[in-house]
């Protein structure tokens, strides 16, 4: 890239750069990676060995770390921001004066989810003891170091990348945060040093070459796919002039389109098989047996842990229209961002990766190249969506192609029908008096094939005509300026919880906070006192569920659930007690059905 290209790219990036609205209490904002690197060591972590410092602070620079080849070192290359976490006293002092005091969590996450999610949360917390975990006091130490970075370089920075494809120009804005303190400070899923987040704007160009913004896509929690993007005319995509507004999650820095509080679900890999089995049973229950209602809880139900991502946007704002402007850098001019394959913070060998730092904009943690890097358009499933300027020509071209296909099918159908007629004549003649049954069989076989060909071609013509008609209608709509529903591509977009969902009595919140632990404690006690008798367990569990349903105003759903459980238990008892009668009845029923069907067939003849 020459300097004039770079300047043009920077101008383009500047024109559509986002405004980010943070939460009150946020401690980390996008930072200059050069300044960050000064405060880090570069380490090599080989399995079974203590980490080795390759480049001690303050000698880590972009050029230095970009030159480190992962293959040569055969281990995990990673930076380390905090080498000494704060002790308890320092932590107390930190909390007494930090911006965290401005954060209000609102309704606790336990009160927002069901009992199973809360029990799984206990398992998740325990797993942190055996998995790799960022030590306590690290987030606070990182916050103190980050303050020192801000004194050196106060302006927040983004790294912009411009990629041009056949249809779109993709503007990627990469933001680097010194630390993700989602777990430590915002009751979230994980903590890790270094945090990369990305926002994309997709442009097309009009006939004069002027850029037209078409879509914006925000990365959130390693997600990808169509749910991450919004069309430029979608009201959910808020803007200041031509600048999209991003609501960043507190601590997680995940980007959201709307302000609010989002429930984030973390899957537990060990339960994936069980979850699939439950989904299969539910599917049979609903489709084959036609049981159940339509509520989301009855349809879905996941075995996962829920966290709240606070993206209220009530804190500091950075970017156009605010008092804090961005400092824009071209990503391609940053050697470490393009070539450094290691992690941008502490590596703990966490089996589910949540507590390991991420790799840079180009790489995944395992060293493979990120989809967003090599396929910036396909990352958000935009490949098949033509831009405004190409939408009508693309639809018209497809319409022409379909019309040509339909036209070509006419003569083929005529030829196939001629062939079928010809074979029909032969078969009729052979049936009348051919000495060779082999010849008749062969002709009948060819006739069946010919009939099949005619049917297939006619079906194909019918489908082609229908499709052409639909595309024709779409072309007409597009010509009238109607681009259709801007949200038609969305499957399960993240939506913030509504205020009505967050109105819970203090007592309900307290119950939600203590119930999972209390249930485990009481079950333990009951086991000791009653020697694991069935009835006390059932009564205890029913009592817990009843209190739970009262607080969440779901007594009807609870009653229904209990009745269904009793019905299935009774069904199992009946199947156990009368299994041979049931087997005989099934055999008799099957026999009767087969006999009846065969007799009907016989009498029809």
């Amino acid at each position, binding site marked *: 890239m020459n300097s004039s290209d770079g300047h043009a790219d920077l101008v383009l990036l500047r024109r559509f750069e986002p405004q980010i609205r943070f939460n009150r209490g946020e401690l980390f904002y996008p930072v200059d990676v050069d300044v960050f690197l000064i405060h880090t060591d570069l380490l090599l972590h080989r399995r079974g060995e203590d980490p080795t410092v390759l480049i001690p602070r303050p000698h880590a620079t972009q050029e230095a770390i970009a030159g480190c080849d992962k293959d040569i070192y055969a281990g995990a290359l990673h930076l380390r921001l905090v080498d000494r976490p704060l002790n308890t006293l320092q932590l107390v002092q930190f909390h007494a004066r930090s911006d965290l005091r401005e954060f209000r969590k609102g309704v606790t996450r336990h*009160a*927002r*989810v*069901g*009992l*199973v*999610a809360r029990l799984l949360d206990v398992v998740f917390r325990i797993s942190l003891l055996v998995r790799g975990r960022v030590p306590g006091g690290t987030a606070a130490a990182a916050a103190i170091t980050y303050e020192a970075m801000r004194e050196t370089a106060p302006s927040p920075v983004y790294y912009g990348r411009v990629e041009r494809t056949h249809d779109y120009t993709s503007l990627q804005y990469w933001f680097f945060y010194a630390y993700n303190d989602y777990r430590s400070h915002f009751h979230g899923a994980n903590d890790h040093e270094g945090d990369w987040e990305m926002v994309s704007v997709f442009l097309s160009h009009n006939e004069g070459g002027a850029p037209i913004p078409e879509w914006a896509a925000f990365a959130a929690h390693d997600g990808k796919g169509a749910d991450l993007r919004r069309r430029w005319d979608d009201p959910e995509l808020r803007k200041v002039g031509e600048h999209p507004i991003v609501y960043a999650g507190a601590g997680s820095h995940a980007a959201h389109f709307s302000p609010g509080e989002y*429930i984030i679900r973390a899957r537990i890999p060990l339960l994936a098989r069980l979850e699939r089995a439950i989904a299969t049973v539910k599917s049979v229950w609903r489709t084959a*047996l*036609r*049981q*159940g*209602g*339509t*509520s*989301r*809880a009855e349809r*879905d*139900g996941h075995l996962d842990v*829920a966290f709240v991502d606070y993206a209220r946007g009530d804190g500091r704002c950075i970017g156009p229209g605010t008092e804090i402007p961005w400092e824009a850098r071209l990503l391609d001019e940053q050697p470490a961002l393009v070539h450094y394959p290691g992690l941008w913070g502490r590596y703990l060998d966490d089996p589910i990766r949540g507590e390991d730092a991420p790799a840079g904009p180009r790489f995944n943690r395992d060293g493979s190249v990120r989809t967003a890097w090599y396929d910036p358009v396909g990352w958000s499933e935009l490949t098949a969506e033509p831009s405004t300027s190409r939408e009508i020509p693309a639809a018209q071209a497809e319409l022409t192609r379909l019309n040509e296909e339909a036209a070509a099918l006419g003569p083929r159908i005529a030829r196939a029908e001629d062939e079928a007629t010809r074979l029909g004549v032969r078969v009729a003649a052979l049936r009348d008096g051919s000495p060779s049954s082999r010849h008749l069989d062969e002709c009948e076989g060819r006739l069946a094939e010919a009939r099949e060909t005619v049917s297939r071609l006619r079906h194909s013509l019918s489908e082609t005509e229908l499709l052409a008609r639909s595309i024709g209608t779409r072309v007409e709509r597009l010509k009238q300026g109607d681009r259709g529903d801007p949200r038609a591509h969305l499957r399960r977009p993240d939506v913030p919880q*509504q205020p*009505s*969902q967050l109105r*819970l009595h203090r007592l309900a919140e307290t119950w939600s906070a203590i119930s999972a632990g209390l249930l485990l404690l009481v079950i333990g006690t009951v086991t000791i006192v009653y020697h694991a008798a069935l009835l006390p367990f059932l009564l205890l569990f029913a009592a817990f*569920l009843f209190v*739970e*349903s009262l607080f*969440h*105003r*779901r*007594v*009807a*759903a*609870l*009653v*229904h*659930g*209990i*009745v*269904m459980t*009793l*019905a299935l*238990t*009774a*069904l199992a*008892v*009946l199947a156990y*007690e*009368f299994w041979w009668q049931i087997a005989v009845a099934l055999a008799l029923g099957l026999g009767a059905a087969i006999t009846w069907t065969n007799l009907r067939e016989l009498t029809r003849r």
Partner: protein
Amino acid sequence: MLLGQALVWTATGTLHFSELPSLRLPATDTSYFNLALVGLNLVIALGMLLLRPWAWMAAMTVQGTSLGAGLWAYYLGSPDFLLMGTSVLVVLYLNLHEVRRPFGVEDLRLRWNAGQEEPDELL
């Protein structure tokens, strides 16, 4: 089905509430108790004919009570399989999509919470 079940209960007197040792109702005459439950079933059946959501919920509750009693009796060694079998059939029938839809009870939470969105699933 509910009417049929009510007739079966009346005819056979197989409601075991009063016969279960731990659920014994000393001051209640068994026949009156049974009669009251049969009456309740008839009221619910009438509500169901008029497609009332409360009737659907009440029918489910009665069947649940009946199933609970049946299972408890089975646990104590004096099972009533007819009671259990008919209740299972009624519950599975009431839970069919096609039956729930006309009663407007496809989503129980929305039906009884005046459209308020709720937190995630109970379980």
